[in-house]
């Protein structure tokens, strides 16, 4: 099989998933790129390959989702073969944000993330409806406190600003302050039963309830439409807006193709690839707001295929990708919690986006503190040759011959990490570093550590910050 096909598959799996070991890349590439894309797009047709029963017996807290929900989500990201399905959970979790720091109810967050998994590649209108009725969201953005005689605008505003249209497009505002108020009025009566903070009596799951008594039945004017609107009508109007097509397309592009400008600047900053955004916008309307169709167009576009190493990995991608690479956490064992501290100190915690605006991405992931944390985390893992994924890399290199040249060592490690590419200068520095040890025999006791050392140097590069 051509190296090119595997390099492209490595790219697809870094973006549409959390990366993959070399053998998995070979297997997926052997079925052909378009087939591999369809497999990812249709998790319902393929086993996720996880033995969740076994995991649940070891992590007994999972049974009721009263604890360990980040662990459950991370477990799926690491172990599910349906990688895109899990990646879409992260995608939507960063846009349709709720934070456990406020909701304080894992059982309700769990229900939300399961919904994002179920709806993540479906129709965007259905997703907006579900998130508007999602108990964690209703509580997080205080819609349960919005009453017909005392409107709380929080959900109404964020639905427009952060979940669907964005503040503005092409230099123009997408809606007015009045639209925000009218939108909030339309969602009055959308509330929850079993309010979330269960302290001191324990946590209960909450359910969505529509309370017609508390719904503002008055006439509303929203984005130029007038009527006695309820929330569903507002969502219908939102979905028809070109701004919504633009907003979702830019988010998809930024998450899967290449880092866009930060969301708040989208009103005045044009997309970095207007042609691809236009393609996605057209597919949004053509398909009737179908996310799966937009993803199909995206993954099969040249813009995607050519965009290797143009996105800075986020912390969750970094941590999950590292665990998948080295082959850790395929079976349950104690001590999973510490990886969540790592994610947190790199700047991203599952179930705790810093605010309803989600995480800032791209270069904003990186500062002195988060960079140090990230490099140290990956280097500690890839330098530990007891991990099966690292042993595989060592054995594959050893199988190539009785000795390996400095150039061969650098090139081989880069390839087996997923066809990483370094700037010529960086590449040369690593080759020079390897030359200090000269041509290495591959059957020695030291060889695994020599490979581990090279892997540590590679994951500390600037290039490795990218996916």
């Amino acid at each position, binding site marked *: 099989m051509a190296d090119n096909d595997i390099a492209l598959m490595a790219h697809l799996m870094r973006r549409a998933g959390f990366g993959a070991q070399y053998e998995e890349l070979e297997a997926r590439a052997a079925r052909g790129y378009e087939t591999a894309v369809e497999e990812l797009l249709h998790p319902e047709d393929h086993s996720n390959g996880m033995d969740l029963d076994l995991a649940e017996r070891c992590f007994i807290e999972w049974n009721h989702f009263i604890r360990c929900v980040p662990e459950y989500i991370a477990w799926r990201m690491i172990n599910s073969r349906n990688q895109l399905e899990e990646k879409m959970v992260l995608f939507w979790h960063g846009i349709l944000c709720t934070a456990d720091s406020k909701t304080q109810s894992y059982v309700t967050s769990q229900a939300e993330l399961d919904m994002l998994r179920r709806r993540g590649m479906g129709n965007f209108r259905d997703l907006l409806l579900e998130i508007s009725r999602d108990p964690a969201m209703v509580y997080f953005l205080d819609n349960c406190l919005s009453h017909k005689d005392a409107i709380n605008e929080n959900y109404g505003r964020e639905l427009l600003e952060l979940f669907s249209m964005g503040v503005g497009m092409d230099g123009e505002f997408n809606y007015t302050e009045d639209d925000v108020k009218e939108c909030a009025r339309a969602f009055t009566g959308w509330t929850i039963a079993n309010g979330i903070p269960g302290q001191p009596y324990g946590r209960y799951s909450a359910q969505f309830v529509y309370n017609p008594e508390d719904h503002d039945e008055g006439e509303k004017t929203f984005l130029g439409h007038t009527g006695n609107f309820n929330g569903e009508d507002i969502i219908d109007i939102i979905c028809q807006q070109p701004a919504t097509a633009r907003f979702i397309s830019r988010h998809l592009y930024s998450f899967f193709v290449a880092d866009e400008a930060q969301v708040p600047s989208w009103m005045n900053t044009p997309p970095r690839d207007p042609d691809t955004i236009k393609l996605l916008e057209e597919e949004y309307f053509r398909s009737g707001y179908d996310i799966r169709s937009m993803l199909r167009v995206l993954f099969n576009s040249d813009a995607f295929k050519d965009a290797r190493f143009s996105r800075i990995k986020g912390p969750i991608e970094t941590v999950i990708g590292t665990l998948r690479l080295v082959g850790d956490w395929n079976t349950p064992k104690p001590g999973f919690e510490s990886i969540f501290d790592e994610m947190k100190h790199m700047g991203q915690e599952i179930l705790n986006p810093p605010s309803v605006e989600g995480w800032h991405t791209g270069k904003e992931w990186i500062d*002195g503190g988060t960079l140090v944390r990230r490099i140290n985390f990956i280097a500690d893992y890839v330098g530990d040759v007891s991990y099966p994924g690292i042993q595989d890399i060592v054995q594959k290199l050893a199988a190539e011959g009785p000795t390996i040249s400095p150039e061969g060592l650098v090139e081989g490690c880069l390839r087996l990490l997923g066809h990483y590419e370094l700037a010529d200068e960086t590449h040369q520095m690593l080759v020079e570093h390897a030359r200090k040890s000269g041509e290495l025999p591959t059957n020695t006791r030291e060889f695994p550590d020599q490979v581990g050392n090279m892997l540590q140097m590679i994951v*500390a590069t600037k290039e490795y910050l990218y996916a």
Partner: protein
Amino acid sequence: MTSNKKDPVLVILQMTGAYDALNTFIPYSDPHYPDYRPVLQISPEDVLAVDDKVGFHPAMAPLKELYDEGKVAVMQGIGYPNPIRSHFRSLDIWHTAEPEKMVTDGWLGKAIRDLDPDKENILTAVNFGRGLPRALAAPGVSVASVGDLASYGVLTGIDGEEQRMDALDIFGRMYSPLIGSGAVNDYLSQTGLDALRGADILRTAPEIYSSGVEYGGSPFAQWLKNIAQVHLADFGTRVLYTGVNPGTFDTHANQNITFPKLWGDVTNAISDFYQDLKEHNANEEVVMLLFTEFGRRVKENGSGTDHGSGGVAFVIGDAVKGGLYGEYPSLEPEKLDEGDLRWNNDFRSTYATLLEQWMGLDANPVLGGTYEQFDLIK
């Protein structure tokens, strides 16, 4: 590296989430106040009054004590033109000092460039928290950003001192900027190099620090402790930045429960920090600015308050002439700005005052214009 302990130091405390100005610094005798706040009002006898009109929220007693000692300037009615009620954009405006258009350079980033034009000290500015605030970002400006001071360092997991030194040597060269590799890569290069150099210096700060002050356990209190450690270690750091996590003060609901606890934690930490400086005879060297992105809606929503405008900020320190600055915005219904406090005090006036009168910089190039200054530094 030159270090002069007497160089003025600015500490910025960002209270993210938009604290409710009306219940932070309370116009308790205004007859409209209880009308707007049937549930959330603080009774006049509980307010920590500074005069017969206004006073601090009762949970802010530690700050009130500093006020009584003449060390707190209250910046009333602070805001910016055409208030925007989005957390993101509003913080951006405070960070960039540019309300009219989106820019990327932070006001402090530019100030740091002026403080250390030849980049002699990579620790001229240090941030504590998750992620670097845009206020500190400017091309070519290095800011150390630390989540946990005790464990800061690059490739700490490489076995063997010699091997690690070798690796760090290559790391340093790999992160040297390459010509033509683009702005993002230049940024990554610089961040990597500065992290490498900064870590070795910063790590010594907790080792040489000792204090009788015990800080609280919240991240904010711990970061203030780290700020004290770094300042007292005499690295020549001039700008220190920290805050509370985004959304913390975003009290749309249950404000009566969360708000007093937040102010209690925050003002206790500030008081501890001040006492710590005092114990080390460093209290005259530091001025703090405590701010938030906007004020909240004047009329409560029954449980909390929605996004508004017109806020209040505080400048704290021995060098500060304590008292009230700006005007308290009117609560007359017809004088509100779409239901919000109408700002009368451009935040850039406070910035200009701090930059020129405290830090000794020319404020004009940093702020891109001239703003009236307050006479608030001794």
